């Protein structure tokens, strides 16, 4: 592992962000809009609902956590797309750069930019709607960690798909979090889902986070054992995603796709 080569991947993205407001704004704008829309909705629901449930930590907190996972995944994939758009895979992979160093470079960029998104979300949710992360207690740390690892796993798997399927696979990548969200019980308990959807929820790490969050909001404490299952699943998915990426890389080196990437096929 070479720090200079990893640094090169990070520096390239720093140069791009520094000279390009159109890359910087999406880090903040989409999460800010989500917080505003859902913040006003939860405020409205609190005003018309006679239930004891406070919608702000239950719904707005869920939005904030789900946006965090989505940003982690998308930032990792966006960094890879920079090489797709500039047809730069050849230059990078014909250099001494190792695949693992490339992945770590993507990861550092994703951590930094999604961390910035998270800070903006927290500040906005606190100032505008009074949602304090402190209301979740220490549970917020494992919540974020499980979602972070899941986001990275999704990002690495998506990056592998882009590498294998070519530039046009972009349309396939962005909706991945949306496809998962109905099963993950972001806004509702998993028990309201049909049995077959509950079975899928069982293998999704975020579902344990959002169940745990609702448990904390309901004053029932954090089910650490359930969250541990979610954490273990997230780590397993991350390992599988990395294995998938390395396998895809070996395939595109074997069939020559990396050298003819824009063709999307070698046949």
């Amino acid at each position: 592992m070479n720090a200079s080569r990893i640094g090169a991947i990070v520096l390239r993205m720093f140069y791009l962000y520094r000279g390009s407001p159109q890359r910087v704004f999406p880090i903040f704008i989409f999460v800010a809009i989500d917080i505003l829309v859902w913040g006003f909705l939860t405020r409205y629901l609190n005003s018309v609902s006679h239930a004891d449930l406070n919608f702000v930590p239950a719904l707005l907190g869920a939005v904030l956590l789900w946006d965090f996972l989505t940003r982690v995944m998308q930032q990792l994939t966006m960094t890879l797309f920079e090489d797709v758009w500039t047809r730069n895979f050849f230059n990078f992979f014909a250099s001494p750069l190792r695949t693992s160093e490339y992945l770590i470079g993507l990861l550092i960029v994703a951590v930094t930019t999604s961390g910035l998104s998270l800070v903006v979300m927290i500040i906005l949710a606190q100032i505008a709607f009074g949602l304090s992360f402190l209301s979740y207690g220490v549970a917020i740390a494992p919540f974020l960690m499980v979602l972070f690892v899941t986001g990275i796993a999704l990002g690495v798997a998506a990056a592998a798909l882009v590498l294998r399927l070519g530039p046009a696979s972009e349309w396939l990548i962005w909706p991945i979090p949306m496809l998962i969200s109905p099963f993950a019980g972001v806004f509702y308990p998993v028990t309201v889902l049909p049995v077959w959807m509950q079975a899928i929820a069982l293998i999704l790490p975020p579902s344990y986070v959002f169940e745990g969050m609702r448990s904390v909001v309901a004053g029932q404490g954090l089910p650490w054992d359930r969250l541990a299952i979610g954490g273990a699943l997230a780590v397993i998915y991350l390992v599988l995603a990395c294995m998938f990426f390395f396998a895809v890389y070996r395939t595109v080196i074997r069939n020559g796709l990396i050298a003819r990437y824009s063709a999307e096929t070698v046949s």
Partner: protein
Amino acid sequence: MIPPVPCVLKVERLEKSFGDVRAVDGVSFHVAPGEIVGLLGPNGAGKTTTINMILGVLEPSAGQIEIEGVDLAAERTKALSCTNFAAVYAPLPGNLTVEQNLRVFGMLYAVENLSARIEKLLAVYDLLRYRRTKAGVLSSGEQTRLSLAKAMLNRPRLLLLDEPTASIDPSSARDIRAGIAKFVDNGLCGVLWTSHNMYEVQAVCDRVLFLSHGRIVLEGDPKTLPEEHGAATLDDLFVNVAQEALHDGGRR
């Protein structure tokens, strides 16, 4: 037969098949330090496939590649650390400036005293005034000069040049050929050079390999090779070999 001399590049029985198509078919050659070897052949002969395998972006079906005595398949990073390349089909990212590109790729190749190296290469390749210009808005000739500057960043022991002067005016091309020849004169670097410009090949290459249908069909000194094979010029010899290959290909 590859002689037992120090080689910066040793390629042995290299093969690459895509399905039923054998793009490279048992190619063996070497490049010695201080030597410029021309890899010639008609389109589709297997030149770029061979270069892609040497650069580690394409896995051979069979055979071995050693760079500075390091097996590329076993120690890819070590082998590619002393290699670099410039190719018309691999432009540097257009959304980074000239200087940013050189810094990013300098870090990828772990170049020591990188800032000083960048300054020198900007001057050598006449890019000082473009240092803050995005690579994407450079003319094709300027982009080629940038690719060559990037290729020289790590003072490579093996330099792969795929039609390096294709987009450059004759005067600049001459300067660039002289610059590369001077760089090779130190006796440390070997160059594998592909070009369709036979004048250029004769001017810079110590030895040429004619590739056709994935095989080396002719090898020798580009200055004497035409006469040895009854051709007036290297250009004529190229055409003869390409046409024979075409007929052979038709019969195959």
